[in-house]
Each structure stands twice: as C-alpha cells, then as structure tokens.
C-alpha cells in the first residue's frame, strides 16, 4: 500500500528497498512520519508504564501493533531505531536485520524530540527492557511480513530470551504478543511441534504470575499446535486442566472458542461445539478477519448439520461467505432432501475442498443424518406406514436394518412414533401441544439467563481510575485531552483486526 503510493508520487524518489528522499514524496512521508510518531507515542507510554509500574498502560502500545503493522516499512524501522538506540551494540544488533543505520536523513526538529525520548528510555544507562523488546518485536513482525523466515527464527529466539530474563509485570502485555509471534515464526517454518515443551513451561510460569494475556496467548498457540497434528486427545486434556482467563482481548477469546469448538466437534459433543463456535463468531471483530470468520462459519454449518439442524439460508447468501460456503450449501440441500445418492455425489465432488478445510472427517459422519431427515419427513407425512415401504423410500437395501434404524430414531427422539415390530408398521404419535410441557419454560429461562450474564460481564469489564474519587475534579482542558485519548483508543480497537490468523 505504502510503496504503491510512493511510486505514483515520484518514481525517481524511490530506491529499490523503498527509501524515500523526504521532500519529493510528501504523501508517502506523511504516512511514514505518522507511523514513526505513533511508535514514538507508544514507546513513551511504555516508558511511563515502567516508571509508574502500571502494567495497564503497556496494553495500548500492544493493541496498537495491529495497525502499525499495516504501515511498517524498513524505512520506518530504520528511523525509529536510529532515533532511539543510543548504545552502539543495540544499533549493531538491529542493523543486521534492517540494514545500514549510519546515514542520517531525519529532520532536525524530529531529532530533538527523538533525543529527549531516547534520553528518557536510557535513564538507567541501558535501554528500558520493555522498549527494547517492543522494538525487537516490530523488527520480527517486519521480517515475518517480508517472508524472511529463517532470519525471523533467529530474531524470535533472541526476543523470547529477553522476555524470559525479565520478571517485571510491565513486560506481560508485550510478552503475550511475543509468544504469539514466536509460535507463528515456528509455524511458518513448519516446526511448531518442536516448541510445545517450551510453551508449556512458559504457560506454567504465566499462570503462577497471573499473567492473563500471556496465558491466553500461550494456550492458543499450544492448542493450535496440537490441532495441527490432530492430537485432539492432548488438546482436550490441556483444556480440561486449565481455567482460561476471561478478561483478555476478544481476539484471543475468539481463537480459543474456535479451538474448543473443533475439539468438541471431534469428540462428538456437537451442541457444546456449536456453543463455542457461535461464541467465536460473535467475539470476532466486525470488520476484517475474513479468513477466520469464513473458517468458523464452515465449522459452524457442519456442526449444525451434525446436530440435525438445517442452517439458515441467509448465511449462504452473504457476500463474504457465498463463495467459500458453496460446497456446504450443496451438502445442506442434499441433507434437507434426505436423499442418500445426492449426498454421496456431493461428497465425491467436493471431497478435496472438504479435506482442505479439515472438515472431511466430520462430513463423513453426516451420512446417518441424511437418513434421519428422511425418516423425519416420512413420519410427518404418514400416520401409519409399513417398514418395507420405508426401506424403499430411503433407498436402503436391508429391510431388517430399517427396523433398527427406526427404533434408534425413536430412541434418540428424532421422531415421535411407535414401532409395531410384529406387524412391521411404523405408527406416528399425535403431535403433542408443546405449551403443555415445560419446554417453553426452559427455553425462556435460557434466554433470560443469557441476558443477565451479558449484563454481568459488561459490568465486570468496566474500569475505573484508581483513587480518582478524592482527587480534584478535572479541568475542561484535561477533560478534552482525556476524551481525545479515548476517541483514539476507540479507533484503534476498531482498527485492530488483522492479527487474527
């Protein structure tokens, strides 16, 4: 994006790795400068977090990573590192990833503010570790984006070492992102399974330190690694033994719920799987993260079918799902019709797509749902029908098995009917008036509980500034500043959506 605009503005001003001569390309410099300024703001915040010992201040820079990542060019990194690293060894270290740092094209006005910030973060002689790790992380992200995988591995090892060496609370928010990108680096190198033991030991430490963001991110990486190798047993055991922190970022929660859904679906606990997948689809940011949404939706449709429900038609028609859910739509139609032959045909045509989506093994299980739907239709249409006729209608060759299939369907309450085995007939029961049972009561109760729970959760999510009740009331100017900050924060939260993988 950035480089494209640069090209349009002035092709000659661009050297081959995107270095721009400041004055000639105002648009590009603008984005670059704002990104640099953003990073500077975040570094300032980090420094304040360390100075005041308030880990919450460090959360914003971490959340901002998502949208910094969009505009993160080698040039931005060079400018930030040039401005902030005073120690020659730091400079030398970063230089091996971002290139030569010696040339100086920054304007003097920026240099002054840089100088001040650089001095603050070097108060103790060396750079504040949190800031150091933050800069490292930016470098790692840019390496990953540039697909320099082997270099990213080396760099990831170094950062993780630094995070482990530091035991301050203020490192936690950054640490959680570091773990994420560390695991991601191993994943793109195809070695995610190698670091399971390490991730588990870090999870232990994070749990002991009550580092919630760290726990969330580590658990997700572990689950991802287990599921990648189809180790559903291990994944289930891990999930069964931990309490997942609730007060973490929605993206983390969405991922966790998605993994849970997959584990439960494999274990045949479909209604739980559906709950988890629904949660995942609700927690996901409303704009962006399309890949994740599509994957969740595929699983959700499959699980709904396995539950014997027919997913709503509207889902298949939505713009962002129409293409990717097409095979699932065909599948749903086949099941709705209760035609086994058609189902097998769909299964054959789209086998490769389903295998790629990793839903194939679940879809194979759908075969008996086709039969169930068929039975349901027959039961609705006939008040009394012979088993032989049922077998014909379902295109099943063994009449003997149809007895069992029908008995099983009644047993599982797929249909309300009775089987007269001696005369070989299926007799459906009169439809019961649902309002004479307690089903409506239970359904209503469930909804009320959901609303109350949502209310509870939102009360818990509110934050109040510590001890502000006996401080002075804020002046108009302070208020304006606060409101502006809040607006910025809101924008960032709305923006960050691309770190869902």
């Amino acid at each position, binding site marked *: 994006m950035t480089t494209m605009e640069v090209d349009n503005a002035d092709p000659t001003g661009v050297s081959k790795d995107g270095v721009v001569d400041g004055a000639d390309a105002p648009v590009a410099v603008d984005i670059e400068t704002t990104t640099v300024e953003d990073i500077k703001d975040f570094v300032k915040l980090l420094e304040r977090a360390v100075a005041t010992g308030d880990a919450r201040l460090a959360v914003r820079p971490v959340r901002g990573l998502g949208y910094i990542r969009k505009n993160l060019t080698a040039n931005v990194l060079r400018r930030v590192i040039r401005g902030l690293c005073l120690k020659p060894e730091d400079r030398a270290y970063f230089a091996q990833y971002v290139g030569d740092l010696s040339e100086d094209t920054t304007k003097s006005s920026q240099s002054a503010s840089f100088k001040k910030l650089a001095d603050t973060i070097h108060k103790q002689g060396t750079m504040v570790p949190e800031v150091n790790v933050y800069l490292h992380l930016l470098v790692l992200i840019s390496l990953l984006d540039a697909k320099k995988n082997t270099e990213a591995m080396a760099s990831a090892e170094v950062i993780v070492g630094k995070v482990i060496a530091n035991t301050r609370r203020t490192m936690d928010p950054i640490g959680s992102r570091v773990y994420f990108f560390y695991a991601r680096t191993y994943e793109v190198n195809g070695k995610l399974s190698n670091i399971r*033991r390490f991730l588990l030991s870090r999870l232990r430490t994070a749990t002991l330190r009550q580092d919630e963001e760290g726990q969330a991110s580590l658990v997700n990486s572990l689950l991802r690694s287990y599921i990648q190798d*189809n*180790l*559903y*047993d291990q994944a*289930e055991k891990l999930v069964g033994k931990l309490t997942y922190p609730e007060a973490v970022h929605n993206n983390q929660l969405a991922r966790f719920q998605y993994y849970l859904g997959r584990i439960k679906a*494999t*274990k*045949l*606990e479909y209604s739980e799987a559906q709950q988890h997948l629904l949660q995942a689809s609700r927690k996901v940011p409303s704009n962006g993260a399309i890949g994740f949404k599509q994957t969740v939706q595929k699983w959700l449709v499959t699980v709904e079918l396995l539950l014997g429900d027919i997913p709503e038609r509207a889902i298949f028609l939505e713009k962002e799902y129409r293409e990717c859910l097409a095979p699932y739509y065909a599948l749903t139609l086949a099941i709705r019709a209760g035609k086994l032959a058609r189902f097998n045909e769909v299964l054959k045509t789209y086998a490769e797509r389903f*295998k790629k989506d990793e839903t*194939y*093994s679940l879809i*194979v*299980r759908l*075969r*008996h749902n086709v*039969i169930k739907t068929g039975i349901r239709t027959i039961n609705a249409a006939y008040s009394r029908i012979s088993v032989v006729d049922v077998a014909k209608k379902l295109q099943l060759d*063994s009449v*003997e*098995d149809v*007895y*069992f*299939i*029908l*008995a*099983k*369907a*009644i*047993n599982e*309450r797929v249909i309300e*009917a*009775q*089987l*007269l*085995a*001696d005369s070989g007939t299926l007799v459906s029961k009169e439809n019961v008036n649902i309002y004479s*049972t*307690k089903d409506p*009561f239970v359904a209503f*109760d469930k909804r*009320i509980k959901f609303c*109350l729970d949502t*209310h509870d959760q939102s009360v818990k999510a509110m934050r109040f500034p510590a001890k502000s009740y006996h401080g002075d009331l804020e002046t108009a100017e302070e208020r304006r500043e606060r409101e502006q900050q809040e607006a910025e924060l809101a924008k960032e939260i709305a923006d960050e959506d691309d770190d869902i993988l």
Partner: protein
Amino acid sequence: MAAGLQNVMALYRQLTEEWNKKPMEKSKCETLLNQLKVALTEHHFIPTAEGEASKQEIVLARDVLEMGAQFAIFDRDIKGFQRHIDQLKVYYYDVKGGIPESSLMNQFLGLYLLSLLAENRLGDFHSEVELMSLDTIEKDPYLSFPVQLERCLMEGSYSKIFSANKSIPAPSYSFFMELLAETTRAEIAKCIKRSCPIISADSARRMLFFATEPEFKSYVDKNKWKIGHGGVFQFDTERNLIQDDFGLEADMDVDRPQPTLADMTALSYQEVAETMLSYARELEKIV
C-alpha cells in the same frame, strides 16, 4: 550396559518360545513378561528427550510391548490391553528415527479402535481416527474394519455388526467382537423398550440376535423383562423415553413407588419458585 541388553534379549527369546508353544503356559508367560518389563526400565523403555536410545533398544521395547498387548487379549484384560497400546503409541507415532515400522502396527491400532467401540467410547474413537490419514484407513483392512463398523453403529444398521463376525481381518479381533456384540445388544434392548409398545417373544429374540431360546431366556430374565399374556412383552414406551432424563434406572425395583408420567413432565412448584427468586436477585443487583 551392553551385557544388560544381552540379558534382556535372551529373556525375550525365551518368552517368544514359551508363547509359541502349544499349549502355552499362561503363568510362565506372565512372569517372563513382567521380568522383561522390569529389566527394560534400566534401558530406554519409554523414550524421552534426554538421552539417545539405540535403535536396538527401541525395537526391543516395542516388541515386548506388542507381546504384552497380545497377552492381554489372550487374558481377556481390556484395560491391560489399552494400557499397552497407550505405551505403544509412543513408538508408533513419535519415535520414528530410522527404525522399521512394526508389521503389527495397523493390526494393533485397529484392535484398539475396536476396543474403544466395544466400550462405547465414541469420542475417543474419533480422536484416534483423526490421527490416521484417510488413505491409510481406506487401504488397510485392519483399520477400515472398525471404521466401517462405527458407521453402521451410528446409522443403526445393527445386523451388519453381527454379520461382520464372519469377516474379521485377524483372529485376535474376535474377542473384541464379542464385547461389541454385547454392547450392541444392550443398545438394541434399550431401543426396543423405548419404541415398541408390544412385541412378541419371537420378534424380540430375532431383534436381539439370539440364535437359541435358552440364551434369550436367560438374557430376558437378567434384564427383568416380564412376559405377558400370549407370549408378548409390553413396554411403557412413553415412560421409558423420559426416564433417562430423570436419571432413573430403567430396570428399577417395581416395589418402590414410581413417579407417574404426569409427575415427570409437569413443572414442579419448587422449580418455578427457585427460578423466579434467582431472577429477583439478579434484578436487584441491576437496580
């Protein structure tokens, strides 16, 4: 170390000899097997990240475990068999470094799948299946057999389960097939009780796959099914259907007063009162 390994090898040879004798002595095999396992703990019985186990040691440990699994089947010890397989899985899936794949691997994994089916542990069954590639399952008779059976079970084609006895891929499968037949029979009995209001003894016998009358009779007596006028069984299907929701045993004592159908479906006052009070509490918190 090397001398120790020689001893273990000698023990293993002794065990195979004993195992292949006809008839073999069970107690002798058992003691030998236990001795072997103890001896192996001094080597790399279960591979860990620390220390390199030699290929010879790994193969030996795997052979001993496979022997143990076979012995467990012979001894009709399901738990013991599954324990051995759990240990063997480390060798089958995780230790790959240069050792040849065991010729018995797929047979044992297939047996393991079948044992899970027989115990009705379908969730575990599916997580095991996920570990195998679809192509292997389709091509390998040992693996495709239990997978096919599971599909029949889910579908309700129970007669295929009983007829599959003829097509087992290895004699060792017959033990678990017996167990599976029992599990399936229990499932059918439940289905009958919940779907057939009236059924003749003859139909019931056929549906439960009993070839002879006495077998059927002892099964019926064990489950406290009462035969009524004209040799028919009668079931209160309605009650049986909801009984499970109340956690009541289907074959509970008849002497005890049983809740009536209306009791079970009606809304109890206590339940309603409790729910309403909980809403009131929540509302108070909000206001």
